[in-house]
């Protein structure tokens, strides 16, 4: 498959790719630290994955196989749109199979199948600053990261526990990377957080509108914030996938009729299909 000759391979010009590549190397060298970069306007709106797309465009090569998911699914409209974009401007092979992909761009999920060495997962990040709900000022949060001053976040979580008995953050649950930087895992459900810890694959994070890139190298400690007496516990709906019977996957709850009856199905469509295909 060849790429649209009207654009440079993978859309971005080579100068922009070099700038993003330099940023990526520094991001990997300082795990969890948000590195500012000169994000460009992309032909997709800000907030729709422009950061992830710029990262993917800068790493992608002709031999890569790309998988794009949104909410865990390959066939959600935004995932389809981004996959089509790369098929057109880079002419790369695309896949829905997690195991076949060399580069996976994701919004809001980490696939259920464990990622392996040699794979790269690119997260789309809307708000890279894990402290933004507590302190919206960049000048201030930058200082807090410099001093590793994360007391505010601990206080917030502790207040949650005092008030509700447990932490009320269900997604975008903050993590400590390499024991040094507090990091937003992007709005993945807290259920996915443990997958980030010592993951064999390289994890890259792109925030286009906020103009930040950060990274977690393979085999790096990623710990969800918690307390000794209130250890972090990932949650999922207590149910079974109606399609494949999975009891371990993250589930979407689907309303089936006007009586409000519910059923649960795997959010990761590739995982679900891989479990029922052999039986067919």
């Amino acid at each position, binding site marked *: 498959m060849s790429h649209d000759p009207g654009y440079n391979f993978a859309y971005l010009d080579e100068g922009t790719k*070099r700038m993003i590549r330099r940023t990526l190397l520094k991001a990997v*060298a*300082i795990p969890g630290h948000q590195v500012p970069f000169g994000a460009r306007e992309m032909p997709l709106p800000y907030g729709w994955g422009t950061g992830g797309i710029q990262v993917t465009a800068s*790493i992608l090569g002709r031999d890569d196989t790309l998988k794009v998911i949104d909410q865990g699914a390959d066939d959600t409209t935004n995932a389809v749109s981004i996959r089509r974009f790369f098929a057109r401007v880079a002419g790369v092979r695309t896949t829905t199979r997690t195991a076949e992909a060399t580069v996976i761009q994701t919004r809001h999920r980490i696939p259920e199948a464990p990622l392996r060495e040699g794979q790269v997962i690119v997260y789309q990040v809307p708000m890279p600053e894990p402290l933004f709900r507590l302190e919206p000022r960049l000048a201030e949060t930058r200082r807090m990261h410099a001093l590793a001053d994360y007391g505010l976040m601990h206080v917030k979580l502790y207040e949650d526990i005092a008030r509700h008995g447990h932490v009320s953050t269900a997604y975008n649950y903050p993590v400590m990377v390499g024991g*040094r930087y507090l990091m937003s895992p992007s709005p993945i459900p807290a259920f996915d957080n443990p997958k980030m810890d010592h993951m064999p694959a390289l994890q890259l994070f792109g925030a286009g509108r906020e103009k930040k890139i950060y990274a977690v190298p393979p085999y790096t400690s990623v710990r969800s914030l918690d307390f000794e007496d209130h250890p972090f516990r990932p949650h999922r709906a207590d149910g079974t996938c109606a399609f494949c019977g999975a009891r371990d996957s993250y589930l979407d709850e689907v309303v089936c009729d006007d009586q409000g009856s519910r059923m649960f199905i795997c959010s990761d469509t590739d995982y679900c299909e891989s479990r029922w295909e052999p039986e067919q």
Partner: protein
Amino acid sequence: MMRPGFHDPVPEAQGCFRAMLDAMSRPGRVHTLDVALDAPPPLAPATAAVLLTLADAETSLHLMPDGAAAGDWVRFHCGSAPASLPEASFVLSLGIHPPLSALRQGSEEAPEQGATLICQVRSLTEGEGWRLAGPGIRDFHHLRVEGLAADFLQQWAAQRPAFPRGVDIILCAGRQLAALPRTVTIEEG
């Protein structure tokens, strides 16, 4: 006559970058580049490819005197602004590298401004030599490097307490490259 850069710049730069990205993500892993680069001596093909992949007019580069013979080629193909050793974002060394503490270290708020040392060495061998640990490494990686300063390990250990400030290194020998991000700890093997 000026020797050319990449033959096919878009895929070659991408291939070289992916090797560097993997090298930086898995410190001590040695990658062999698949590029046909006719670099001017004393520049090794890997060193030349790294420069073409990362450096351009938007970066500053300090060329150590040992690289002077390749100076014209570097200036022509990269067009980086020349900068002093403590100010450059990239430092190119082809002989004995300058002390790491003399390079830009970045600040606590902007540690990414710590310099990248592109260091050409005699040889890189994976699986023996130093014992590396840190992010990117499951247990340990082993790497032998011939051609660094005699007190390199002391210099490396000395920058560790300043983390996140520090210098990252891309090591090049022949067509091979490896990387030492500032997070890695190195012990004599």
